[in-house]
């Protein structure tokens, strides 16, 4: 399905990542946004508030992030494509509803413009410290999808992708921006609406008497209806059966929860996206994402100039994690270097998949600014020297 031309600002723009994210949401067909101001994400909802009245959307500034994160779930069951936007402290408050969204298979998009934490931390300065929280922050077992843009253009493109994946898999999709990408202004091309591919909601179209709200299709994802369609649905955060009724038993748990994880796990190859540069012939591969993937470039260039064979693998989808690809690289004996704006998060995922076959070097940074490329260069170089 193609995008609704209403609201698609086709053309070349000079936008920051936050505003590009707002435009991506509008292009994707998002028409309900609930949010609460928090630096450095606020510009996303400011632009939504500005633009929504004339494109048929409703924006509401809720009383806190807890309210925002569940208002969008109500909005999704009311039939809209929905989003909320926040940063670290607000993201922490939203965790319970990421769990509710996963449990009730509610399509929705959470945007986290990461700043340095923990707690209030450095509100106006970047970090990538919420990557593990994105994956594991709510209690219990579930799966989500998380995307990592590294430019305003990607903030636009990946916001659309986030909505499409949310609808495809009926899952919360997390757009893991960072302060740099959010506040960086660059050229953003918004294509004509007819060139924007949109995934519509998977509305049930079978006979009404056969309808079961949580009966999955072959890809483990159940089709959906909305409130008011006459199906008299019941949606609960309790463990439930295919009808949606609470079922307080290990049997029901064993049927439901693995499916919630498997619908992402077994479709991971279709979901995972990364970009590689000169990985094949490389001895060392830098694995990076978000702003750090750009900071790593001068380090990689410098090392290549000195004759070191360095490849670059940039994660676009961080969760589900490209386990197989890391395993392949490790099997080929490529040393791995992981710079990130935290003290080790995605690093552990890379290390786990390297199975101890190759050295995996973390280039940590507590956030507040980006790495000095020299730190990444030094890490590459020390591997070369067997360090």
């Amino acid at each position, binding site marked *: 399905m193609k995008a609704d031309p209403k609201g698609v600002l086709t053309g070349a723009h000079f936008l920051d990542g936050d505003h590009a994210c707002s435009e991506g949401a509008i292009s994707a067909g998002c028409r309900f946004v609930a949010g609460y101001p928090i630096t450095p994400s606020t510009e996303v909802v400011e632009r939504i508030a500005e633009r929504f009245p004339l494109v048929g959307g*409703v924006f509401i500034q809720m009383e806190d992030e807890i309210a925002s994160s569940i208002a969008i779930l109500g909005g999704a*069951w009311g039939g809209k494509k929905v989003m909320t936007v926040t940063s670290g402290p607000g993201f922490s408050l939203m965790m319970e509803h990421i769990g509710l969204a996963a449990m009730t298979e509610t399509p929705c998009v959470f945007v986290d413009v990461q700043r340095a934490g923990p707690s209030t931390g450095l509100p106006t300065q970047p970090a990538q410290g919420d990557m593990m929280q994105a994956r594991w922050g709510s209690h219990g077992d579930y799966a989500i999808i998380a995307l990592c843009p590294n430019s305003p253009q990607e903030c636009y493109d990946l916001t659309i992708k986030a909505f499409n994946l949310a609808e495809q898999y009926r899952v919360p999709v997390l757009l893991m921006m960072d302060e740099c990408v959010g506040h960086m202004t660059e050229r953003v091309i918004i294509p004509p609406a007819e060139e924007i591919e949109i995934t519509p909601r998977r509305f049930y179209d079978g006979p009404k008497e056969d309808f079961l709200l949580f009966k999955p299709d072959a890809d483990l994802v159940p089709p959906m209806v909305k*409130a*008011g369609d006459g199906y008299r649905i019941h949606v609960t955060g309790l463990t439930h059966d295919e009808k949606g009724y609470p079922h307080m038993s290990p049997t029901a748990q064993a049927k439901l929860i693995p499916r919630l994880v498997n619908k992402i796990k077994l479709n991971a190859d279709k979901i995972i996206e990364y970009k590689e540069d000169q990985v094949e012939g490389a001895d060392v591969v830098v694995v990076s994402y978000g702003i750090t993937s750009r900071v790593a470039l001068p380090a990689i260039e410098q090392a290549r100039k000195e004759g070191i064979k360095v490849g670059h693998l940039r994660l676009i989808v961080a969760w589900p994690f490209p386990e197989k690809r890391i395993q392949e690289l490790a099997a080929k004996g490529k040393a791995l270097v992981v710079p990130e704006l935290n003290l080790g998060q995605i690093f552990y995922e890379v290390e786990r998949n390297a199975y101890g076959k190759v050295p995996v070097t973390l280039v940590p940074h507590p956030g507040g600014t980006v790495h000095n490329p020299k730190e990444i260069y030094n890490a590459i170089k020390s591997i070369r020297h067997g360090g």
Partner: protein
Amino acid sequence: MKGVEMEDQMYEIEETMPLNPVESFLRMDRMPHIWCPSCGIGTTVNCFGRALETSGLDMDKVAIVSGIGCTGRVAGYLNLDSFHTTHGRPIPFATGLKLANPELKVVVYSGDGDLFAIGGNHFIHAARRNLDMTVICVNNFIYGMTGGQVAPTTPISATATTAPHGNFEQPFNLPYLAESCGAVYVARWTAYHVRYLTKAIKEALAKKGFSFIEVLAPCPTLYSRRNKLGDGLDQMVFYKEHSEIQHNIDTKTATLDFQGKIIVGKFVDKERPDYLTLMNEHYQKKFGDKYTPYKG
């Protein structure tokens, strides 16, 4: 032979018995419910069903949202589009549901702890915004599901598991709170006042804007037992003997003391444009013809 005939006869009698009129509003395939014998929540649900029956509403367009707790289970028993959300958050869920699909009549049905402790912030803001929804709070003065802890509605001197020496915190006066925040319809009844309550629910459902009903209900297992107030029936007798109907009273005076006088009635019934009306009017003024009124 005779026995078999009698059984057949009995079976036939059962088949032809008229259904309880409330049954069509319930998910009978989920019965029996989890509530204790002589708990008041079921009585309020019965009143809700009766109110729906005469409301003239299209039941496919009525959605019910609950939080967590004993009353939080109401959504799961009603044969409507029903949402059992997280603790304290049915109102913001209902906010999103209503704004996304304004043709729905959205009812929030939850308990005092859910709506006024963990969810208190959402209540005051939804009332302030005058979102078009009905909030029914079953107030049993205590946390039931978790085993009888003190609530923001527990009267002074009543005991609870987390106030074993008696409560000394001042409880909320819920009608006063609701009115102060801007609710357009506010009433309080008890599980004893089934006809008044049914009428109040019907009025609240017909009201455009944020309507609020507090229903006092017995919790025989925890509140009554801990405070030696007898069983549910004893509490109903108490409600009957100690309630005083005072419509339109200044809600400030509608406080509740431990086993004291209970002022019930319809306290507020006024007009104020609801959130979406205000939004549409505002943007029409601002943008003129460029703005298409939002209908969902």
